């Protein structure tokens, strides 16, 4: 499978994503410069973390207008799998591919530490190999991870099972104390209504190998690969 990793000026987690896809998953990882307008031949797209455009104006506000984003929007509208990690999630929000917006962390600090997130929905292409309620320990590193949306949208997210990950205690309890940034409803990651686009603030690409002391993040990438393989099989059989 071919995974495209979009590289914006200021992206800095693209290499970790490429490493996980190629060395851990054994798949093809292709860096895609933000000026590219074609994503042909790619099975999935990853928008990595970093500081695209230095977070100038608002994080992700300028990157959302990069030439490649037109192709990403088309790819997503055609059902293509899109994963946004941290800054990637912020860009997807600004681009309107996911609902809501990010505010500055409640504490005002840039928080860089391991947190625990609970898999609220294991019936997605990104969590298909997880158990519902599974707790993953994954690091965060951000100053704007305080997810916000209006009450109507929040109700819709809850009703449609679009909240995929919530910050929780190591035991899986969703509590205010477990929330590192003030994010609404402890939201750490959401998907779009159609289910093919996911954004999450934690960095699974930083914990996908045992040698790093934590490989909890690998299951997200394995789930994506599993879903892609199943889809290809369906297409071939049909």
């Amino acid at each position, binding site marked *: 499978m071919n995974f495209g990793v979009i590289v914006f000026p200021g992206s800095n987690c693209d290499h970790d994503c490429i490493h996980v896809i190629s060395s851990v998953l054994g798949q093809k990882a292709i860096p895609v410069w933000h000026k590219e307008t074609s994503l042909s031949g790619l099975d999935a797209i990853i928008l990595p973390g970093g500081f695209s455009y230095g977070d100038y*104006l*608002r994080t992700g*506000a*300028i990157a959302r*207008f990069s030439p490649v984003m037109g192709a990403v929007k088309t790819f997503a509208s055609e059902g293509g799998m899109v994963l946004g990690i941290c800054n990637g999630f912020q860009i997807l929000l*600004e681009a309107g591919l996911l609902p*809501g*917006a990010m*505010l*500055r*962390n*409640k*504490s*005002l600090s840039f928080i860089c530490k391991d947190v625990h997130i609970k898999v609220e929905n294991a019936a997605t292409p990104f969590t298909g190999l997880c158990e519902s309620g599974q707790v993953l320990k994954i690091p965060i590193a951000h100053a704007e991870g*305080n997810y*916000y*949306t*209006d009450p109507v949208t929040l109700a819709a997210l809850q009703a449609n099972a679009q909240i995929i990950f919530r910050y929780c205690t190591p035991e899986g309890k969703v509590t205010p104390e477990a929330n590192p940034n*003030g994010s609404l409803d402890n939201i750490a990651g959401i998907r779009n209504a159609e289910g093919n686009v996911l954004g999450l603030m934690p960095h699974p690409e930083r914990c996908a190998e045992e040698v790093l002391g934590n490989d909890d993040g690998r299951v997200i990438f394995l789930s994506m690969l599993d879903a892609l393989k199943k889809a290809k099989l369906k297409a071939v059989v049909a």
Partner: protein
Amino acid sequence: MKAKIHITLKSGILDPQGKAIEHALGTLGFKNVGNVRMGKYLEVELQETTQDKAEAEVKAMCEKLLANTIIEEYRYELAG
């Protein structure tokens, strides 16, 4: 023409920076300080000389890029 644009968080949106500044003012001895909200100020020079057209341009800039209308509101004034 020059557009002077103010972008602020919508009321009701948590503004931790504003709160931090409010507390700092209190610590410095400025009593009777109420709510503090922090925003952004931009100056945009426009080639357009017609007031109506310039306003329309600035509004479009704010809606499309300068403000995230989910969480921010904007106001502007045009001069020159």
